[in-house]
């Protein structure tokens, strides 16, 4: 059995998404959550690659992916900076302890 390259990429996208959503639902550590967000973003990037490949617009897809990488990195940096402050003020990175705001 042989899979077309497009199918392999789409399979990878689905897998990454699955891992990502699972992580969003169960990860308690803020750093892990940030990693999970990165995984989700990678899924999106792969999806762009797949779309570009399927539509034979690889150049456009690549430039978009580059843009996503930049934006994604900025978000990750801010998120990590927040995580440092959270660790400092709450003494933990467990998001289930970050529940002073509720109701």
């Amino acid at each position, binding site marked *: 059995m042989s899979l077309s390259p497009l199918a392999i990429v789409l399979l990878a996208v689905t897998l990454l998404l699955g891992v990502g*959503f699972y992580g*969003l*639902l*169960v*990860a*308690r550590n803020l750093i892990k*959550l940030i990693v999970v967000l990165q995984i989700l973003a990678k899924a999106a990037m792969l999806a762009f690659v797949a779309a570009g490949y399927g539509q034979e617009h690889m150049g456009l897809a690549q430039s978009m992916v580059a843009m996503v990488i930049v934006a994604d990195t900025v978000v990750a940096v801010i998120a990590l900076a927040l995580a440092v402050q959270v660790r400092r003020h709450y003494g933990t990175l467990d*998001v*289930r302890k*970050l*529940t*002073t*705001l*509720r*109701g």
Partner: protein
Amino acid sequence: MAAPFITLTIGLPWLGALAVWIAGDQHPKAQHALAVLFAVAGGLSGLALLTTTGAEVAIRLPVGGAFGDFTFVADGLGVFLAVIATVIGSLAVIFSVEYMKGEAQLGRYYAFVLLFIGAMAGLALTGSLLLLFFFWEVTALTSYALISFHNDDPKAVAGGIKALLMTQLGGVGLLAGALLIYAHLGSYDISAFLAGADALPPDLRALIAFGFLAAAAAKSAQAPFHTWLPDAMEAPTPVSALIHAATMVNAGVYLLARFFPAFESVPGWSTAVVIIGMVTALLAAVMALVADDLKRVLAYSTVSQLGYMVFAIGCGSVLAGQFHLFSHAVFKALLFLGAGAVIHAIGTRDMHQMGGLGKHMPLVRGVFVIGAGALAGIPILNGFWSKELILETGLAHGPLWGYIGMLIGAGLTALYTARMVWLVFYGEPRSHHHAHDARPAMAIPLVLLAVGTLTTWLLFGPFGALLAEAVPGLHEESTLDFVTKVVSDPATLLALGVVAIGLLAWQQRSRLSPIAAGLRALEQAAKQGFGFEAINRFVARMTRSAATVLQRTQTGELNWNAAGIAGALLIVLIILAGGGTR
């Protein structure tokens, strides 16, 4: 012709509100003076409107879009209510000069009273459904602000919010009705609707009719929405006299009268109006009989008398309803202001702490007894004539059970009125207080209103003529014919007999005590508000517990929040994939 007076009648009080606010609370004297000045000027302009009535649109401001034209019409029905609002409004403002002396935050008080007067005039004079609802809501807003004027008193705050919520709840009926009309006729013009109502599909007309009825019942404190009015008595007494007796609560009756021609042929509507009027009149009369707070007795009596007006409209007589509205506005304003003078003098509203006040306050007693006589329906006071007119209309055009119910109501009215007058002014003093009689600022409005109570019935002929141009098919007649008819009608004797029984029942109350004991259960039920309060509480409790349940969904946990995203994605996918069609 009427345009400048319409502008002045609405605009002067509103300008006054601004002026009083700008004058600032540091200058109470200027505030009193400005308020009186603008209120009286508004009243005069309202009276001037009487000379320029006409059914055509006097002011038309094209706003466009979904808002249509803002129109104002000075027809008889509207001008009448505008005059009531501005004239009694100016009397209440004059009364306030003495009553509110030394109160803090006068600016807020006068600004809202004047805002109310202008809005009430606007409500009466507009020809656009959108503006009707607009002013309807403004009066609700001002009424709320004035009921809870003493914001430090939790009862006042609760009363204000309750009044606001309940009238707004009913107001949704008016909103829906107005929107239905606009959606089908493409215009907010009230006269266009009245002319074209018959062309609308019957079930649509029924929806509009019952929507308006709900709004009217909420505004005029009719069952099952009546519970807010007694709680509104936390307001300063001039406000109770103006808003919660003489004007705003009449807006519901006005609404029914205004749209009666369009709704009378809706099956079941007239009967529903008759039932609501009668049930309210009777229930409220019983509650007035057992209440101990002077202002609450007056509030229940207002509810009950409004029931009479609603009943009259249900029986098909706009004239009878509006004529009683006229009489009631005058004598009930008199009673409230009289009660205000008493409360101002001795500082309590509990009738069990009054008694024997007549000796110290002869003037107040005199005018109060006149007002009470009109309420009880004693000849020749204005309340007698208008109530007779309603009863005769009921006998002639309404169901017999309705007539009998209203007759019993008349007896109860006489009974609770006698009880109230006795407890306040006669008998032995039940507590020590240094009552003083009304000072000029209070005495002037009281005397004017007392003169009105004695004489307004003489205006029956012109009143009918005024209304006839606005209400199609209204049967007008001269005062003399009307008086002759009432005097010669045997039904009048019957009604007078019932009133006399009511008065006698109070005089012979010690002999009737076994009967009273037998009615203890009824008394208890009346003190509980016949279970309507329980319904209110139930609704409030259900809302709160729904909120408490929902509050648990806001856990603050990030994983749970993310689950919301995943769940929403699934649901949206399912809906978009499954979907419906247009």
